[in-house]
């Protein structure tokens, strides 16, 4: 069974390089907070969406559209219109998190493919089958919290295709079930489509070192010889019982290149690259490496090995220049 490569695009140039370099699907979002990467200057208006679909379809590739934040009572209409616009643009699937919106989409556009977003927090087959029974979802993206044996059992107990995260920023919390960002800034992925938003970030040079703050809360302090990373709330250094360390998560990237044959054997349908907020150069390079790796494993899973050049390439792009298998790998703690 082939493993679909699902690549991110925050702009048309990024979508084009993803398609040109071997993505099977590219996922995008509209230019507002109907998706979980609602960053200024990023994402697609309607003409760009139409062009994205035209470009990808002309080359036999798919476009998926993320509508994966939770509509509020007063803003429901905009999310509903976003579903309408996506259907109109002819995207191949929409990626949803809110159950009410799924009901709307499945009733209004019964032929439109629905994917359950990672923000839908489905970590077991009963939850996935719930969405399948009620709204006919055809694929679910799993939160990055399950071990591979747990994923394997889940795949066997659902008719829904499973998509796993393969590379990019590592969310250590169950997506859709983390409001740390709104606790500090008032805005969370669920409601505002952002985590640790840039407008709440402050950098300040102090006698103790370079300090990063989010919403006024000190997330980390760097000495002159340390690389300072983007202050994502869960990736700061904190003090617990007198010990200062990455108490929640190191700034590392998920990289599961070595698991490709295992994913194929287990019947995983697609692997997702994180990073709609990243540049076209990132998209191009990650897509190239993953295309080569998947092709190599498809040709011969038995003899598949991770090419060191791939790792070198990906390490340059990784957050914090570190890699991890995250929860897929049981000893992770």
């Amino acid at each position, binding site marked *: 069974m082939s493993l679909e490569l699902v690549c991110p695009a925050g702009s048309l140039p990024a979508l084009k390089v993803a398609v040109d370099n071997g993505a099977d699907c590219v996922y995008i979002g509209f230019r507002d907070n109907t998706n979980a990467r609602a960053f200024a200057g990023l994402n697609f208006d309607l003409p760009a969406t139409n062009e994205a679909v035209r470009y990808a379809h002309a080359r036999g590739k798919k476009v998926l559209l993320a509508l994966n934040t*939770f*509509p*509020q*009572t*007063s803003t*429901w209409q905009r999310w509903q219109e976003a579903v309408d616009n996506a259907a109109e643009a002819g995207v191949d699937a929409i990626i949803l998190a*809110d*159950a*009410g*919106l799924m*009901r709307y989409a499945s009733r209004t556009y019964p032929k439109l493919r629905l994917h359950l977003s990672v923000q*839908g*927090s*489905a*970590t*077991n087959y*009963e*939850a996935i*089958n*719930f969405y399948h029974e009620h709204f006919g979802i055809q694929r679910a993206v799993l939160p*990055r*919290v*399950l071990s591979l044996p*747990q994923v394997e*059992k889940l795949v066997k107990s659902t008719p829904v295709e499973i998509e796993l995260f393969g590379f990019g920023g590592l969310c*250590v*919390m*169950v997506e859709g*079930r*983390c*409001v*740390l960002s*709104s*606790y*500090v*800034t*008032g805005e969370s992925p*669920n*409601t505002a489509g952002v985590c640790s938003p840039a407008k709440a970030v402050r950098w300040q040079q102090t006698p103790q070192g370079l300090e990063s703050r989010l919403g006024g*809360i*000190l997330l980390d*302090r760097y000495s002159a010889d340390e690389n300072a990373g983007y202050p994502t709330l*869960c990736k*700061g*250094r*904190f*003090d*617990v*019982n007198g*010990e*200062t360390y990455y*108490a*929640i*998560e190191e700034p590392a990237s998920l990289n599961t290149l070595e698991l490709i044959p295992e994913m194929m054997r287990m019947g995983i349908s697609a692997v997702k690259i994180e990073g709609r907020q990243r540049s076209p150069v990132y998209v191009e390079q990650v897509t190239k490496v993953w295309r080569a790796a998947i092709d190599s494993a498809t040709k011969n899973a038995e003899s598949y090995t991770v090419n060191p050049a791939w790792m070198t390439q990906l390490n340059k792009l990784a957050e914090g220049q570190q890699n991890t298998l*995250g*929860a897929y790998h*049981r*000893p*992770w*703690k």
Partner: protein
Amino acid sequence: MKLSLGPILYYWQRDFLFQFYEQIAASPVDIVYLGEAVCSKRHTFRFEDWLTVAKKLAESGKEVVLSTQALIESESDLQTLRRLAENGTFAVETNDMGAVRLMSGKKFVVGPHINTYNPHTLGLLAGLGAKRWVMPVEMSRAKLSDILAEKPQGMETEVFAYGRLPLAFSARCFTARHYNLPKDDCQFRCLEHPVGLTLKTRDGKPFLALNGIQTQSSSIYNLLAELDNMKQVGVDVVRVSPQPLHTVEILSLFRQRLDGTLTGAEAGQQLERLMTDEPCDGYWYAKAGIEQIEVVC
């Protein structure tokens, strides 16, 4: 409005749990949520123990609801879930859509960890049998008011009104990580931290509380001063989250405010003396959750 006690979010010793619920049976609370909502490894109380306590509380006149875990990963988590769903006596608080699937057609409560942000989703859950919902902790009064203007008929609304806020769930156990132990061999170190393990910023300010796989606020969400506003908006139940000390006193203060036998100022002052951490109420005012907006008397 009714007063509820949420599920215990921490890991406490068995004897203490029995004592705790004996006190609760005699306390002025209307509804008690029971069960392990955070981590399946916690086992000082087994399923049968929860049922024993549930029966005793029901005999004392309390409405009992059994809460499910929020993060359900393994087949054994699902087995526990099925036993809860099929208990036949008590309503269930669902904290995962898998639980909603198993409870469909039965009476259930939508827990705070189901993402219910609009009347369409709430209506869908009502259609499946939900009789009450607990709003997500990050929801503001204004947004709650918007939903309640279009809420399904007969649906009760509950608000998490006191306690450290449950903010996130993870695959990682942060308590085990603190002790440099693998999650699979955590040695049940949560037992040593009956209100979680406080995480401070590098400038020494309490920020979060590590509670196994759950991350909480270090500050205590406190909406005691908001009870009148809640009533106006249409809230039916206010929830106090259990803590090892002073839970009964805290419930009593909420009760007296609900009954109008204590002024807001008096209750606020008395509650302040029982608080072991800073208060916060920002979420209710559509601000950052950590903020304290209401001026404490």
